[in-house]
């Protein structure tokens, strides 16, 4: 392990140019081998969750924005589970039968899931909007924070498959607001995860607005309501939080928050917060250190789209789409609006390159929600997935250029700064008409490619299985799971840099992402045709660095802070969580590639030095 004061700001600012261009052709050729196929496997998974938005008939605006979901390994068995949020009856809703609630489905392997909501105790019946996942007490088990319309909930993971509601003790209930995205982050670098809570609007039933287009009743837009400041809670490290909305600088700007995502956009080693606002300027909260933030969206040219317009923004993701060492942002939007792809220039500015990159092709006509910068074909470049579906259930009565139900859009990253709409040729999962809201991306079957879960408003979700291996892809991959020791347990905010030949990628451990959702705690790196990884660097919050060289591919690597890559204990399962060694193993179904990987165990080279670190 090495210490470092920051994140190589010098090297991080532009690796592109000749280098990137040089291997782009090679990667293009490589990428051509791998066709993305996402198969809709929803019906056979055992997931019977059906979302409700409250549907009062009175067109309350909150109905339109529900809900997000989370993919997380809540029980540490190495299989990623799914937690769906649901709305709840609103004033005037005809409700009979049991109250709708959130549902947790445990991944049994082999694309089978079991509803464990009752046993786990996470069936909140509040009006669920956003969710964040983070181990806020560093006990090794991911906790859940629900950002509701109404009181919020913090579920503490007991580590035995159950959770308990600790909201009151933790002090993060945050009143009766309309929530949005939420994120755990170590804002002060003290090893404890603080909590950012986005809010949408100031809504009450008394503030109900009714709207119509040519006499047809419609849901109102957010600008008819006063905006609402976001909130920030400092983790005291004793299981309680102190609200620090004002002292942190978060509360100075009222917005119409929707999707939120974390990223160290300026490579200063501190986690920043991006909030996309609905029909208002976006916020970029620059972390100044000491849990203080400054909103710099305008100055960084990320507040509006390329035309200076405040679009109806919905979901947001962060990722280095052009592998230049800088985190970029992708933001989805309303219909007849392009999404935005904010390319990080490395000089404190962003540039919306959605037009010339083609990252919005095929999505203009639909309302766009959950999104991900995700490498589906393991070519080393992050593709774009956009969940679609209108918020007006009767939109076709007034506008035949868009639809309530809409298929998702998949844009393949060509590795040259451009994207290609491959929705029509990427499997039946891209042909399913959905009413997407939250979308999550994780490797649900541990086969080395990223799958998709879509939460649909008023409907059952869709699970899209990535068939990359089945289509004969020769691309390799590496997944990295972090275990913080001095820093927060899951490594939220830590940056991983993976070097395989000319292919250099970065990713940061997220908490809260996309459209009011959470996914991707285990970082995924496609490697193209590279059969070894030259180097894996982990830059922990606070400056510590772990590094390994000559790492084998097609496996899940665990990096423990201060120890670097650690070998896994493979005993019939995919892999065993080091921290939770001795607990239940993976079920062993559907092993294929991943099973082989775990049995071979991780092979890591000697620890290595990175520039600026003391070795």
């Amino acid at each position, binding site marked *: 392990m090495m210490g470092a004061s920051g994140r190589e700001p010098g090297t991080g600012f532009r690796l592109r140019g000749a280098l990137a261009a040089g291997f782009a052709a090679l990667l293009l050729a490589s990428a051509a081998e791998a066709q993305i196929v996402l198969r809709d496997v929803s019906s056979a998974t055992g997931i019977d969750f059906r979302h409700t938005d409250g549907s009062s008939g009175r067109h309350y605006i909150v109905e339109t924005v529900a809900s997000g979901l989370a993919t997380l390994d809540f029980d540490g068995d190495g299989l990623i589970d799914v937690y769906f949020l649901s709305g709840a009856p609103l004033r005037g809703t005809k409700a009979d039968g049991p109250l709708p609630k959130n549902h947790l489905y445990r991944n049994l392997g082999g694309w089978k899931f079991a509803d464990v909501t009752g046993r786990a105790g996470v069936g909140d019946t509040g009006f669920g909007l956003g969710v964040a996942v983070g181990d806020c007490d560093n006990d090794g088990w991911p906790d859940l924070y629900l950002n509701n319309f109404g009181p919020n909930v913090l579920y503490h993971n007991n580590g035995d498959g159950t959770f308990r509601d600790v909201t009151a003790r933790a002090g993060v209930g945050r009143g009766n607001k309309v929530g949005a995205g939420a994120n755990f982050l170590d804002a002060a670098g003290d090893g404890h995860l603080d909590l950012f809570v986005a809010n949408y609007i100031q809504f009450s039933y008394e503030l109900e607005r009714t709207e119509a287009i040519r006499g047809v009743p419609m849901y109102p837009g957010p600008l008819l309501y006063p905006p609402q400041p976001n909130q920030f809670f400092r983790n005291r490290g004793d299981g309680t939080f102190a609200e620090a909305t004002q002292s942190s600088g978060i509360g100075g700007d009222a917005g119409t928050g929707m999707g939120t995502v974390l990223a160290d956009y300026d490579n200063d080693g501190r986690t920043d917060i991006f909030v996309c606002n609905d029909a208002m300027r976006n916020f970029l909260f620059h972390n100044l250190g000491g849990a203080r933030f400054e909103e710099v969206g305008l100055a960084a040219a990320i507040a509006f789209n390329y035309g200076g317009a405040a679009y109806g923004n919905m979901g947001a993701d962060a990722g280095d789409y052009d592998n230049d060492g800088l985190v970029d942002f992708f933001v989805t939007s309303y219909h007849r609006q392009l999404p935005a792809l904010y390319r990080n220039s490395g000089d404190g500015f962003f540039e919306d390159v959605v037009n*010339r990159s083609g990252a919005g092709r095929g999505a203009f006509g639909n309302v766009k929600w959950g999104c991900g910068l995700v490498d589906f074909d393991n070519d080393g470049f992050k593709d774009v997935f956009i969940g679609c579906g209108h918020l007006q259930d009767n939109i076709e009565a007034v506008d035949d250029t868009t639809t309530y139900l809409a298929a998702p859009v998949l844009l393949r990253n060509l590795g040259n700064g451009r994207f290609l709409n491959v929705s029509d040729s990427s499997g039946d999962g891209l042909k399913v008409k959905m009413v997407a809201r939250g979308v999550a991306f994780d490797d649900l079957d541990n086969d080395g490619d990223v799958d998709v879960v879509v939460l649909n408003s008023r409907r059952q979700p869709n699970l899209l299985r990535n068939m990359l291996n089945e289509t004969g892809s020769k691309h390799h991959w590496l997944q990295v799971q972090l275990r913080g020791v001095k820093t927060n347990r899951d490594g939220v905010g830590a940056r991983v840099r993976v070097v395989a030949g000319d292919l250099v990628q970065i990713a940061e451990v997220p908490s809260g992402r996309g459209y009011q959702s959470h996914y991707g705690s285990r970082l995924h790196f496609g490697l193209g045709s590279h059969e070894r990884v030259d180097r894996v660097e982990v830059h922990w919050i606070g400056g510590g660095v772990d590094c390994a060289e000559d790492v084998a591919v097609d496996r899940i690597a665990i990096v423990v802070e201060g120890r670097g890559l650690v070998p896994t204990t493979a005993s019939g399962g995919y892999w065993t969580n080091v921290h939770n060694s001795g607990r239940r193993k993976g079920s062993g179904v559907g092993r294929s590639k991943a099973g082989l990987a775990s049995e071979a165990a991780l092979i890591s080279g000697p620890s290595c030095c990175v520039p600026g670190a003391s070795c």
Partner: protein
Amino acid sequence: MGEGRKSERPGAGSRFCGSCGTARKVGLWCVAAVAAAATGVYLSGSRSLRGRAPLEDGPPESAAAEQRAQPGGALSGQTGIEDQRPAPGSAQRPSESVPQTPASLYAEAYQVLKRLNERFPNSPDATEMMARLQSISGNTAEAVRLWKEILRSNPDYAYAHVGLGSVAAKKGEHEEAAEAFRRALAIHPQLTATYLDLADSLVKLGRVEEAAAVLRKYLEMEPRSAAGMILLGQAYLQSKEYEKAKTQFEAAILVTPDSPPAQYGLGTAYARLGQSEKSKQAMARCLELRSKLRSVTEDQRSLNDDLGLARENVEKLYSGAGRVYAAAGDLRQAEELWLKAAAVNPKGVDCRRQLVVLYRRSERFQDALEICRQLIEIDPGNADYQRVREVIQGRSRP
């Protein structure tokens, strides 16, 4: 020139486009352009409007004569102004009851346009009006059908291409949209607003340099168009020509100081040029303006309050329908529709301009002056209205 082609396709509404100087056929709206060019009285100002009428004499009657001369004879027997002179003072009559909801406004407009199409079944102009209503009403499939129907008999009917482009643009089919807009401009290069549509589609396709070229051409024709300057500035920003971008935004702000996108663009350009203080000032101004405009933003209006939009749309439809009647010589019906349009949209300019022309030519000077008064009230900064009023006042004196 042009006569040969005109005789080839005798369908009503195909006209010789004098303003282009070419032998091309255009839609109804070109008549106004021809008239304006002939009189030399253009009203300068914002982005050009379809069919904006000149306020002084022009050749609408030539179009009417052309229409009357066409086979079919449906319009034969229609006489000129003297035969149909409405009673003086109609401009000051209380307007008839106006529907107060978007749905009823559009429903009434549908009936008006249905009658128009029944009266002129072979008129592409009438069909185009109905297509526009269908498009506005969200029934773009029917609009597309109508525009294509027009193009089958009138391939050079520019506004049908514009309509098809607009639907493609709404759907995000920007390649098709750009192609349609280009076709329209090839037929009728004076359709200035279409340059903006074309540039917007090109920008969305990432073809920024092409868009910039289109916008430069547009600004040669409309040198005071803030919309054009802003779009060009944005194109320059995307091509990293920050100094040029700054120049465009500065020019736009001179025309429209209250434009948030212009201020934002200027702030961005300044920032890229390293002028951080100026950037901050422009950004602060942008936020201030956005805050002021928040309750009436386009986004909000289109999503939440479409009564104002419906009034504007229906006014334009009635103004256009009135022109079809006027072109056919039925000035009484034309006047009725323009008055109806004025009642529908108290801030409507297009219909009032038509009325000024009509009243002035029929020597109903008091009515013309009343409409001028309304125009000045609507747009007090437009010196042309003052000038036209003075002209009419001069002619109305014994």
